[in-house]
C-alpha cells in the first residue's frame, strides 16, 4: 500500500536521510514556490523539532510513525505563538494563544508543522482568491484557481511541499481543492475530529479534514486526529481504522449515484462522460449500481448557503477589533465596530455576513432560515433511506473544471453553484473522500455516518479498478 509517511519513516529509521535535511528541503521548496500557498513559514520551530528527532534516532531510540513527518496547516487553525490570520486583513497580526486539538494531537505524535497555508479568508470561497496573500495558483496549471477554501493546503500536498496538510471543510473546502489538484482529501463524519481551535465558519458543518497523496496517509492521519474532545461537545468516540480493514472491499455489493447530478445541462461534457465510464468499469467488477433520486442542485446550494451564512454572521460577529484584530478607531464604539469590519472583511465575507443577518431577521427567518433547516432535515432523511439501499454513493466532485484565476470573483453566484456536488454531503454530515480518479476533477466516495472504513475500502478498490 503506497504511503509517503511509511516511506519517509523507513528512510528516517534506516538513517538514509536526516530529519533536519528533510525539513530543510521542504522549507526551501515552500520558500521558493510561486503558487501563493504560504501565509507564514514555521522554519525556526520546524528545524528545532527536526534536530530533536535526529537526536532520538542517533541515540537508537524508537520513533513513532508520524515523528518527523512534515505537514501543513490551513491558516484557520490555532497553533500557539504563530500568526493565525484566516487569510484576512482583520487578523493579519493575530497570534494564536492556544493550539487546536487536532493540531496538538499531531504535535504529540511528533509530526512537524512547516507552514500556515493560504486559502479563502475565513473559508469564504471556492477558489482561494478571497485572500490578502494573493490567489493560490493550481498545482498543475498556474493560470487556474487552486479551488478552495483549502487551496494552499491542496497545492502544497500536490507539489510535495508537505507530506500531508490539514484543511477545513464546511461545504466542500477540502474535497473540491483536492479534486482540482488531483490529491486525496477527506471530509470526515461531522464530530469525528474536534473543531476546538478551528476558526468557526459554519459550526454545524465545519469539519477538520486531512489532504494527502495516498489513501494510506489519509488513514494514518485520520486515526491520529480523531476522537472525543471535551472542548468540542459535538465530538464522539471513534475506533481506530486498522490498515488491513481497508484492503478488501468484498462487502461492498451495491453502490449508487445521483442521476440528477449527471443528467443536467450544468455538468461539463467530459466530466459527465468520464463519470459514466467509471460507472461501467465498476459494474464490470460485479457491483450493482443504482441511479438514485436526489434534491435539485440549486436547492442543495441554496440550503447550504442559507444556513452557512446565518452561522457565519453569528460566528464572525465577535470580530470587531475590541480585544484583538486590526481595530480602526471611529468616533465611538459603534462606529469603531462598523469601520473596523467594513475595512477589514473581504467583499465575499461581507456578502455572507449580510446574507446571514438577512435570513435571521424577523420576517425572513420563517420563510428562509427555518425552511433551510427543514430542507436540511429532509436531505438527511433522504441519505438515511439511500444507505438502506446502497453501501456507497459516488459522485463527481465538481460539475466543471477549475476556472481561470479572476473568473470566480466576477460571478459569485456561479461560484456558489460550483459547490453543487459537495454541499449535500456536508448538510448530511457524512464521511466523503475525494480521490484523484474517475473524472478530471476526481470522484467523491460517500458512506453512512461514521463509516470512514467503508469509504477508504472503496477508494482502495477504485485505485485498483480505474
Amino acid at each position, binding site marked *: 500500500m503506497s504511503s509517503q509517511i511509511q516511506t519517509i519513516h523507513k528512510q528516517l529509521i534506516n538513517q538514509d536521510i536526516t530529519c533536519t535535511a528533510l525539513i530543510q528541503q521542504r522549507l526551501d521548496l515552500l520558500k521558493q514556490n510561486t503558487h501563493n500557498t504560504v501565509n507564514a513559514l514555521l522554519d525556526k520551530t520546524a528545524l528545532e523539532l527536526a534536530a530533536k528527532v535526529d537526536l532520538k534516532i542517533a541515540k537508537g531510540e524508537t520513533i513513532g510513525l508520524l515523528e518527523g513527518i512534515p505537514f501543513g496547516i490551513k491558516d484557520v487553525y490555532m497553533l500557539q505563538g504563530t500568526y493565525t490570520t484566516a487569510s484576512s486583513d482583520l487578523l493579519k497580526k493575530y497570534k494564536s494563544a492556544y493550539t487546536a486539538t487536532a493540531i496538538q494531537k499531531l504535535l504529540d505524535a511528533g509530526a512537524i508543522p512547516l507552514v500556515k497555508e493560504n486559502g479563502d479568508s475565513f473559508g469564504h470561497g471556492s477558489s482561494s482568491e478571497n485572500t490578502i496573500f494573493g490567489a493560490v495558483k493550481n498545482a498543475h496549471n498556474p493560470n487556474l484557481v487552486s479551488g478552495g477554501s483549502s487551496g494552499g493546503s491542496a497545492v502544497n500536498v500536490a507539489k510535495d511541499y508537505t507530506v500531508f496538510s490539514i484543511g477545513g471543510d464546511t461545504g466542500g473546502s477540502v474535497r473540491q481543492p483536492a479534486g482540482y489538484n488531483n490529491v486525496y482529501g477527506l471530509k470526515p463524519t461531522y464530530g469525528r475530529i474536534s473543531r476546538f481551535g478551528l476558526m468557526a465558519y459554519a459550526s454545524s458543518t465545519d469539519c477538520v479534514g486531512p489532504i494527502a497523496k495516498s489513501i494510506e496517509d489519509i488513514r494514518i492521519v485520520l486515526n491520529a486526529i480523531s476522537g472525543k474532545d471535551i472542548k468540542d461537545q459535538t465530538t464522539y468516540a471513534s475506533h481506530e481504522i486498522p490498515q488491513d480493514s481497508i484492503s478488501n472491499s468484498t462487502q461492498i455489493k451495491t453502490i449508487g449515484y445521483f442521476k440528477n447530478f449527471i443528467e443536467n445541462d450544468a455538468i461539463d461534457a467530459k466530466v459527465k462522460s468520464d463519470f459514466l465510464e467509471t460507472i461501467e468499469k465498476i459494474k464490470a467488477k460485479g457491483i450493482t449500481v443504482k441511479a438514485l433520486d436526489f434534491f435539485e442542485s440549486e436547492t442543495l446550494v441554496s440550503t447550504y448557503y442559507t444556513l452557512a451564512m446565518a452561522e457565519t454572521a453569528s460566528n464572525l460577529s465577535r470580530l470587531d477589533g475590541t480585544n484583538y484584530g486590526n481595530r480602526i478607531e471611529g468616533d465611538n*464604539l459603534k462606529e469603531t465596530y462598523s469601520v473596523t469590519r467594513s475595512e477589514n472583511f473581504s467583499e465575499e465575507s461581507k456578502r455572507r455576513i449580510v446574507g446571514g443577518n438577512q435570513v435571521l431577521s424577523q420576517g425572513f427567518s420563517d420563510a428562509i432560515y427555518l425552511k433551510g433547516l427543514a430542507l436540511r432535515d429532509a436531505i438527511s432523511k433522504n441519505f438515511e433511506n439511500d444507505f438502506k439501499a446502497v453501501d456507497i454513493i459516488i459522485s463527481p466532485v465538481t460539475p466543471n473544471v477549475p476556472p481561470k484565476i479572476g473568473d470566480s470573483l466576477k460571478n459569485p453566484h456561479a461560484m456558489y453553484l460550483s459547490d453543487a456536488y459537495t454541499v449535500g454531503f456536508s448538510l448530511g454530515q457524512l464521511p466523503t473522500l475525494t480521490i484523484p480518479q474517475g473524472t478530471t476533477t476526481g470522484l467523491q466516495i460517500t458512506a453512512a455516518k461514521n463509516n470512514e472504513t467503508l469509504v477508504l475500502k472503496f477508494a482502495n478498490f477504485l485505485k485498483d479498478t480505474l
Partner: protein
Amino acid sequence: MSKIMTVDVLSSIKDAQPSEAVNKLFEVIKKANTNNNLNNASHNNALFLDDLRADTVINSSALEKQIIIENFPKSKNGYLVVSKVIEE
C-alpha cells in the same frame, strides 16, 4: 427594540447592502417544497451530564496571557485601551 434595523446596522458593516447573488439563493429556498414539515423535525442534540466540562475556572498559562495581551489592538501607559463607549 421596536425600530427597524437595517442589514448594515445588524452586520456592523458600514453601508452594507443585500447582494443580488445571495438573494438569488434565497429565492430558491422560498420556492422549495418542504412538505410543510417545518416544525416536525426531532433533534436529539442533548448531552450527557458526565460529558460536560467541569464548572471550574482554569487559569491560562503565562504564555497564553502574554499572547492575549499582545493581541490587544491598543495600549497606553501599560493599560489596554478600548473605544469610547456611548449610551443612547
